[in-house]
């Protein structure tokens, strides 16, 4: 899949994001690196931060469109 639908899903989940990036790591449309900076992450453990990203991308993860997902989360402060 292209990066745009993933970008849109993340924008929906993190409307306040100050940084939001989706990279197709291999060009094959199934290995992605996402970076999100949002106030929603503040005060959360890394596990809970990544869970929010997994929740946002639950559908493409479940249907196999995403084979590999690398996640980098940040607060905004």
């Amino acid at each position: 899949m292209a990066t745009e639908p993933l970008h849109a899903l993340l924008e929906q989940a993190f409307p306040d994001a100050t940084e939001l990036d989706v990279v197709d790591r291999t060009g094959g449309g199934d290995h992605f690196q996402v970076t999100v900076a949002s106030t929603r992450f503040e005060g959360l453990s890394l596990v809970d931060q990544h869970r929010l990203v997994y929740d946002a991308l639950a559908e493409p993860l479940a249907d196999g469109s995403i084979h590999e997902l690398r996640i980098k989360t940040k607060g905004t402060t």
Partner: protein
Amino acid sequence: MTPLRDQISEIIETEPVTLFMKGTPSFVACGNSQRALSALRAAGAPVTAVDILPDPRFRQELSSISGWPTIPQVFVKGELVGGADIVEELAANGELERKLTDALGEDYRDQRDERVVALQAA
């Protein structure tokens, strides 16, 4: 035979450090499993590895227990620490060693032999 779900839960609860991975430490079948294994080794963690590849139900059951959709998954004393990205990040900033010391004691490196536990399909 013990139900699969109970086998997985028991490993998570009883092993000091569990790495659910694709392949085994001597034959790693995925780059992300390798990243997690390398980070754990660098921290001197006593790794118990579980290969989820032999049966697709292993991964389904694990993710249903942990609520974590991807592999690898690392647990310390029953607590989900994260996947490859988190374990690498914690290893790089020293928090992984701190977490292991808190959970397992100062001498956790002395228990560092790696072992592999196999799940039994029903």
